[in-house]
């Protein structure tokens, strides 16, 4: 990563998703069947109680924050405690919409019962920075604590920025990632009426019959540490953040730039940042939302950067749904798991790759591979693009 020259180790991660809670269940889920019959997929039977001291505390955390603290608990358990000054331990977190459920619930209370019944806890429940604030308070992290809200690119941007703070020397460790829980009725109606959601109830990335995404939810949290400090404490280093790219389409509030020009530029920025050539990359974890426009632009971009059918591409959204601001974190974790298991999960839900696309999509079954640096793309409404390159140890 350009800038400070300090290397960035990934030493732990945690995940909460509809296809699995915890890294083992999540990996099984990534290799499981795709979603069918849902416009929005939620984590079934979610129980926040293990992560909070009392029902009072959990009730005052929006579901998005509950997911974040649960994933953080697993990540810290996985990483062990980084041996760094807490003043130099940052929290760079992400969400697309923050506490939308609480906002909707309390607007309903306002309309039904009047102003005097609106919860005094709504503000700290709805504010998008609440998940990051909660994590820093739990672990006593006094370094920079910022929340990035670049829609579906948010957690990829967060991981990239978190890594850069370490590379630049401003932090020695950062907890990063993203959380989302927007599947309340206003969320589903909003995404549905803009025709982003699948009318057939399945996410089928890059399929000729793709018709939109299934709204997902969840959280992914990663612990990043300055490499030599991680080595020095004997941490189990799981991967390295090699580079990150961030740019803007400057084109349209929801539609991607034709030909994926923004995504092309973004992937090239990440490659340059990592000091790598396209041929050094072993696998693309695509944004692959399953919308007609995103997948066309992204397929064109991947073909342009890596050559026609030049690299295995997968999208995990067939099983995770689209977790918006958490998507990039879930997908960074999916890449780390693909390295650990030496297997690229298939693009669930997809059966017939759009013949217009010249990409080597992993479909049908997982593909064995020799772990190599991998790139994950996240392309957000607003024209926000993010790419991150993670390398195996």
């Amino acid at each position, binding site marked *: 990563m350009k800038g400070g020259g300090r290397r960035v180790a990934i030493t732990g991660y945690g995940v909460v998703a509809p296809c699995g809670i915890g890294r083992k269940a999540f990996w099984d889920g990534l290799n499981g069947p795709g979603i069918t019959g849902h416009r929005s997929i939620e984590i079934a039977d979610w129980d926040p109680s293990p992560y909070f001291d009392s029902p009072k505390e959990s009730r005052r955390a929006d579901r998005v924050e509950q997911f974040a603290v649960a994933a953080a608990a697993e990540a810290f358990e996985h990483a062990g405690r980084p041996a760094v000054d807490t003043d130099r331990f940052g929290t760079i977190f992400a969400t697309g919409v923050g506490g939308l459920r609480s906002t909707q619930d309390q607007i309903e209370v306002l309309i039904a019962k009047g102003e005097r019944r609106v919860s*005094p806890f709504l503000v700290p429940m709805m504010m998008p920075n609440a998940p990051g604030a909660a994590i820093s308070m739990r672990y006593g992290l006094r370094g920079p604590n910022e929340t990035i809200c670049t829609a579906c690119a948010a957690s990829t941007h967060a991981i990239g920025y978190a890594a850069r703070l370490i590379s630049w020397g401003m932090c020695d460790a950062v907890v990063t990632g993203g959380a989302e829980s927007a599947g309340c009725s206003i969320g589903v109606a909003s995404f549905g009426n803009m025709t982003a959601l699948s009318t057939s109830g399945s996410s089928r990335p890059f399929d000729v019959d793709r018709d939109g995404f299934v709204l997902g939810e969840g959280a992914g949290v990663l612990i990043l540490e300055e490499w030599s400090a991680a080595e020095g404490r004997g941490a189990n280093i799981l991967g390295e953040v090699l580079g990150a790219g961030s740019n803007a389409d400057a084109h349209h509030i929801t539609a991607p730039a034709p030909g994926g020009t923004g995504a092309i530029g973004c992937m090239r920025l990440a490659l340059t940042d990592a000091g790598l050539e396209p041929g050094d990359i072993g696998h693309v974890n695509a944004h692959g939302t399953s919308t007609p426009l995103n997948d066309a632009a992204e397929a064109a971009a991947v073909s342009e950067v890596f050559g026609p059918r030049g690299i295995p591409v997968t999208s995990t959204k067939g099983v995770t749904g689209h977790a918006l601001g958490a998507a990039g974190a879930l997908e960074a974790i999916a890449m780390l798991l693909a390295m650990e298991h030496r297997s690229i999960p298939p693009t669930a839900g997809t059966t017939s790759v759009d013949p217009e696309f010249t990409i080597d999509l992993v479909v049908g079954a997982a593909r064995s591979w020799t772990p190599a640096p991998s790139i994950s793309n996240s392309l957000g409404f607003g024209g926000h693009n993010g790419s991150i390159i993670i390398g195996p140890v």
Partner: protein
Amino acid sequence: MDQAMFARFRKCAVEVLSVSEDQVVPEAKFGDDLDADSLDLVELVMALEEEFGVEVPEEDLEGIETVGQAYDLVVGKL
């Protein structure tokens, strides 16, 4: 003290403050004994207003420190 009435009050306190029933006694202090801060009290008063069908203006909460004081305040509005 009307025991049936106090039981309704106690039920609200148990739910809102995540405390056990035997903690909700008249002499219990919200801050020291029930770990409740000022916003917890606002939420408790909302629940009590719903339960008892009364309205407790915010200024009436000044100086309310114990369960017994809060109970008397709410019941006094009936």
